């Protein structure tokens, strides 16, 4: 990796991982390390998925404010899961094979995302603010719908809304881990293969077409990749709200480079550092319950506001 900024970030991430693995280990080292290594791998995958999905989405939508989470990709995924449970019942859903269920839900998400957001992104082309606002409110609608459906599934579940609201980094679902890892890794590879074309997409629609990109197909492909990555991250830890916005903004700020060959790994590394170091600090050092997601939300909200007031939306 010739890029100096990336090298420094990689070193910082390696250090964070090391601290995460060894801090406060007592008793059976082998057992604890194996357990932590698995969770570390999942966290790293979540970080990379969210960062790359956000970067791709921002490039094809032509602005630095929207993220897949803000327009409700993750809410849509949870909605699909909820509707599935509602349709066939919780017991039957639980008996579906893990792999088939994850792949099926992910495929539905990809279809729904392409149908919904391709229309949104094309319809509001050139009118970034309208698109951003419509996207955000769509996100709100998906979250409300999810809460609605979860009420229908279990009217007595008081915290139904809450389940769908925040990421829990300390309670990673072990079940879908391996299949999600495979899907996530494949999608990341796909994003890497697109890096040069994404550079051209970032110039804007007309420039991209003029330089020989099939803009429509790129948009669809990008949305499918975003759906795959979002499904991966959401299946592992839950919805992530402003996390993606936080890390891509930091990546732009720190790396000051337009190439996706730098931006995507950079954002992924930063996301990894924030997640791993944040998790180490919150869980082990401060002993706080499950609030890293909330803190990220708070910081991400500030970044969002700063981007708006500083005209970063252009």
């Amino acid at each position, binding site marked *: 990796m010739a890029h100096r900024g990336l090298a420094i970030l990689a070193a910082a991430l390696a250090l964070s991982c090391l601290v995460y693995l060894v801090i406060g280990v007592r008793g059976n080292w082998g057992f604890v390390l194996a357990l932590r290594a698995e969770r570390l791998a999942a966290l790293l995958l979540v970080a990379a998925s969210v960062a790359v999905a956000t970067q791709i989405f921002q490039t094809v939508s032509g602005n630095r404010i929207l993220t897949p989470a803000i327009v409700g990709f993750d809410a849509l995924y949870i909605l699909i899961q909820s509707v599935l449970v509602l349709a066939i019942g919780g017991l039957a859903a639980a008996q579906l094979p893990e792999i088939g269920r994850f792949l099926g839900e992910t495929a539905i998400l990809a279809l729904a995302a392409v149908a919904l957001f391709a229309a949104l992104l094309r319809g509001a082309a050139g009118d970034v603010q309208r698109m951003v606002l419509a996207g955000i409110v769509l996100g709100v609608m998906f979250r409300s719908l999810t809460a609605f459906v979860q009420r229908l599934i279990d009217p007595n579940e008081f915290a139904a809304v809450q389940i769908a609201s925040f990421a829990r980094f300390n309670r990673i679902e072990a079940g879908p881990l391996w299949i999600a890892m495979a899907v996530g890794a494949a999608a990341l590879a796909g994003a890497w293969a697109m890096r*040069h074309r994404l550079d051209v997409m*970032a110039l*804007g629609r007309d420039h991209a077409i003029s330089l020989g990109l099939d803009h429509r197909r790129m948009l669809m492909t990008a949305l499918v990749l975003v759906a795959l990555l979002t499904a991966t991250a959401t299946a592992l830890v839950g919805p992530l709200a402003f996390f993606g916005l936080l890390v891509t903004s930091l990546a732009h700020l720190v790396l000051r480079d337009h190439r996706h060959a730098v931006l995507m790994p950079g954002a992924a590394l930063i996301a990894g550092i924030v997640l791993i170091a944040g998790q180490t600090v919150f869980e082990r050092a401060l002993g706080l319950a499950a609030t890293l997601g909330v803190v990220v939300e708070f910081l991400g909200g500030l970044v969002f506001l700063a981007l708006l007031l500083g005209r970063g939306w252009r």
Partner: protein
Amino acid sequence: MIEIRNLSHAEGRTPILHDITLSLPKGGVTAILGPNGAGKSTLLSLMARLRPLQAGSIAYDGMDIAATPTERLARKLAILRQDSTVGSRLTVRDLVGFGRFPHHRGRPGPADRAAVEAALGQFDLAPLAGRFTEELSGGQRQRALVAMAFVQATDYLLLDEPLSGLDMYYARMLMRLLRRLAEEHGRTVVVVLHEINYAAAHADRIVALKDGRVALEGPAAEVFASARLSPIFGMEIPVERWHGRPVALHYT
């Protein structure tokens, strides 16, 4: 040769272009003139496949744009749009470098780099090469975009009002450069112009649009020799000759 057949286009229910059939010979500079709202920009956008065709066909040297893969078209024709904002934060060198993308698909070789450096020199951009495009003046950015379309090295070059934002010096420089591209490199240039005297001075052919139809078409000398331009713009356009060239005196 550009062949446009039975091209019609509508925005929603508003018709913009009506049944346009045109053939433009290979080589030379063709100027598209016409009053505001005549459909010039729409025509150029359609020719550059920036908008989907609704009715009719467009072909370059027999290459139908509806049937040809877009990456092949990118080596056949380049477009410079009127509103050319750049989405990324790029240096001038990087921006111009993107013009080579259709040829290297993300892996620039020495030949690509050389072409970019040559274009930077040709457009007086070398001193600005390291600056970010958003730090440039409108005219400087326009020049960088023209340079980007130039290094795309296509047979056909479409430009939509490239002179807007350029001062007299660079406007003339650009028009002379387009002429040279046509004469020395055999490229075909189609340019939408606002100021008809640039067409009079530099164009070989004129296509005048009015209300979405071709109102007038022919060699520049013929078009300017006749009094037929006046009704197109709905105003008196006296044409005088000065050193053997037509000059329109429409300022008073």
